[in-house]
């Protein structure tokens, strides 16, 4: 939409299935639907938070966006020009929701074919999954990643200097001495001092390793950094340091982040907009404040209320979900959340709710909220149809408690 900074990366209907092998001949007996038709846009200088429980496929999304693994289907467009981007939006709106695996079986209508071919053309030009050696390398330069585990993300047999210099080396940036010069600068940027150049990773604490990781990611002056739970292995005080560094860098270099985390309070602190995933699907997507003040999807609400708050005085009634996350190998039919949903309705177990925009920039996939486009006049989409939940509850319980806290 107008006024927004240009989009850096825009994923559409990305899906990744990992085959399950079994039986006597270890044939493919099923799929783990790790990521099932995820779409999201990341704009320049913006942080998108990607939250969800373990096994919901958020990490896989991160790796797919960088093409560290090949997707089963879907496209991710890198820096499509605005008009192309708008066109893309239209095309996908025309094509409707992501087709299921056997969608190909139904013969598409001619106009669909036309759209698809156009899509193909655009994809050939902009989708990172279509790029080859040189172009791919050029894209990779601009997309970097910082990993969760600071202990396995740095090669134990390389000096910090070589670790950070590696991306430069790969892309033949400058002479050796220039590279090491740059490395020194990078270490300064992330708050390490030059004498750390001559150390091995195992000599550092978790926070310092994470800084090294960030320095390595920054080496090629990227536009987007995927932060895969960068702080979940760190202590709170160190975590704050890292978050502050990240924010500083974003301000200075206009970086875009995809901040993957299960820690909602961190996400709230750092990200501009948030995507909530459950079992490989996006269940809710909104601007941060919107999402945290008016969460619509029951899962989001449960998540928010499940987060403990460091304040013994703040007493609130919580929504405790029953049971565990179902295995993505055999996701429940219909809405994948219906097995644990406190507001489950008969329809949930049969029909899969589409991700619809119930308010501006607020997308939800839940039967509680009818699609405004098809909803009869005069019904406010935000009053859940027949939901046992009272309106949209404030996840933080009685506002009195909240005001008392803040």
């Amino acid at each position: 939409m107008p006024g927004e900074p240009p989009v850096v990366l825009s994923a559409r209907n990305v899906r990744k299935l990992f085959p399950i092998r079994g039986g006597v001949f270890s044939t493919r007996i099923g799929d783990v639907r790790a990521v099932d038709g995820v779409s999201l846009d990341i704009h320049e200088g913006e942080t998108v938070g990607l939250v969800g429980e373990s096994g919901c496929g958020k990490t896989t999304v991160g790796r797919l966006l960088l093409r560290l693994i090949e997707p089963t289907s879907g496209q991710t467009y890198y820096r499509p020009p605005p008009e192309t981007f708008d066109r893309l939006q239209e095309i996908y709106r025309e094509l409707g929701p992501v087709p299921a695996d056997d969608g190909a079986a139904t013969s598409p209508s001619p106009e669909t074919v036309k759209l698809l071919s156009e899509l193909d053309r655009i994809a050939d030009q902009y989708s990172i999954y279509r790029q080859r050696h040189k172009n791919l390398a050029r894209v990779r330069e601009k997309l970097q990643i910082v990993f969760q585990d600071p202990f396995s993300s740095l090669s134990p047999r390389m000096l910090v200097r070589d670790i950070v210099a590696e991306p430069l080396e790969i892309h033949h940036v400058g002479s050796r001495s220039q590279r090491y010069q740059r490395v020194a600068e990078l270490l300064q940027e992330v708050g390490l001092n030059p004498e750390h150049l001559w150390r091995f990773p195992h000599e550092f604490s978790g926070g310092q390793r994470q800084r090294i990781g960030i320095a390595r990611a920054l080496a090629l002056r990227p536009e987007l950094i995927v932060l895969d739970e960068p702080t979940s292995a760190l202590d709170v005080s160190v975590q704050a340091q890292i978050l502050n560094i990240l924010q500083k860098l974003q301000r200075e270099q206009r970086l875009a982040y995809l901040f993957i985390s299960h820690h909602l309070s961190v996400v709230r602190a750092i990200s501009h907009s948030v995507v909530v995933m459950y079992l490989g699907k996006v269940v809710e997507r909104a601007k941060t404040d919107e999402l945290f003040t008016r969460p619509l999807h029951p899962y989001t609400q449960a998540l928010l209320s499940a987060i403990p708050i460091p304040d013994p005085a703040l007493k609130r009634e919580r929504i405790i979900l029953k049971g565990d996350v179902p295995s993505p190998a055999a996701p429940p039919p219909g809405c994948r959340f219906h097995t644990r949903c406190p507001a489950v309705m008969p329809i949930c177990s049969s029909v899969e709710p589409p991700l619809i925009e119930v308010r501006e920039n607020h997308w939800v996939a839940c039967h509680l909220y009818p699609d405004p486009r098809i909803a009869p006049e005069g019904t406010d989409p935000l009053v859940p149809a027949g939901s046992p939940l009272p309106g949209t509850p404030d996840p933080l319980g009685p506002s009195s408690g909240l005001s008392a806290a803040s």
Partner: protein
Amino acid sequence: MSSAVRINSETDTLPASAPDTSPVSGGPLASAPASEAPAHRDVVLDVRDLKTYFFTYDGVVKALDGVSFKVRRGETLGLVGETGCGKSVTAFSITRLIPDPPGRVMSGKILYRGANLLWNLEREATFKPIRNTGRVKIRRRFRQIRAAMDRMSAVRGGGVSTIFQEPTSAMNPIFSISDQIGEALLLHRGMEIVDALLNAKPDDPAVAAAIDHALEVSRHGTNSEVRAAALAIGTAVGVPSLGVQAYYILREAGPSAPESKPEILHALRRLKFSGLQRAYLRRERRIAELRKRANEVYLTEMRTGSPQRMARVNLSRQRTTANLRTLYLSLWGIRRHVRRTVQNELYWRTVATLEGVGIGNPVQVARGYPHELSGGMLQRVMIAMALSSEPDILLADEPTTALDVTIQAQILELMRDLKSRVGTAIVLITHDLAVIAEVADRVCVMYAGHIVETAPVAELYHRPLHPYTQGLLASIPRLDQPDKELTSIPGSVPNLITPPTGCRFHPRCPHAMPVCKTEHPPTTVEGSGHTVACYLYTGPVAVE
């Protein structure tokens, strides 16, 4: 375990069952010796000036350097701090589970109900520093260490039980859940179990009546009534677990429950023993009894501080004779039936225990193996296992760190339940101040092997005194305060091989004074139950 079933009487997963019908009787403190001095009455665990070092290649890591705290009966104490502050080390030092090598508990006192768990520590090893390297050469006295470990097995599980961070790796992959919980049950409640089997009266007319009644109830009654009736069978026989079994027989039979009499009778038939089998049971009981006596001897040893060599020798002699005299009983033919019965007994007791921690399908879970269960489920199982022996103290080492947010919420809910029902004192170790705020009554904040601040939970969060605590609280991103900017503590946790002199926090402290660099601050009392070790405060020095 009684606790367990008492809990489930309120948990939503299962209908109510009156406490008296619970398979086992006796509260967690039933076994408390009356000989204790009143001073010890309230304090269950008293840790004084505990020092634990790790002897690594890089040098001696002073992981704990004089930690002191008390755990009172039934309270929940939170130990909080960053990685490497030594909170887990504290827990493992209490039960002497420090991996050795490289770690060793160096000195201090751990008084568990007046018994010093670190008694005879100084005789376990000698230390000789290697010149001009930071390293130390240790010569261990293995006999002493082994003796100490034996002594500890009297305390572990029974008195102080532990739950660990990684439930998936903390369970033995090749034994089923019921095997593992059953092992704990047999260890700590062996006598009771064998007694129940010995005194079972399957032919009692009351039993038949109870069975008929249960079947009658199962025809129309509600789930809870059926359960009560089924458990009544157990009480009638004198083997509570039989009641649980009967209940599940009925429940699985579903509509055809009234016809399920034969199964129940079959289960009942297991409890009929021939003379030889009884003898074998008595032998088992004898062995369990001896084990218990041995534990008592160890405890007295640690309490009085004088080696009970004679008593130990006696016991071992008795154990040998008990084994030898009845060797003929361990013929396979005799043993098989009894073993199976005991296994069955353990299995159903396990089921009851699992019910206690709110597991919906305990029968399947008890039969399952660890790799078949999710992390949250396993953590429940771990808790059940830890509580099955009705300990005085439960050491929970980061019980929710490895779990998802929603599962974490479930577990915390469960722990709050346990707090309110079981009298067990909990030592909750975590790095997450929010979790502490949810569960704990008192909090000890640890930094670099020291306790820097201790306070009741509300007090701590609203009037944090130590700069470190303040820094920690300031650095937590908070859901309810989105636009608070995160202030972080500069620097990182010091390495404990060459820790900072004086107050270990001074390199990172905003209000560091000259004295901080030289002197370690004394612990001073600031308000009721609020102590802090910092030169900013000048209250009266706290007395141990």
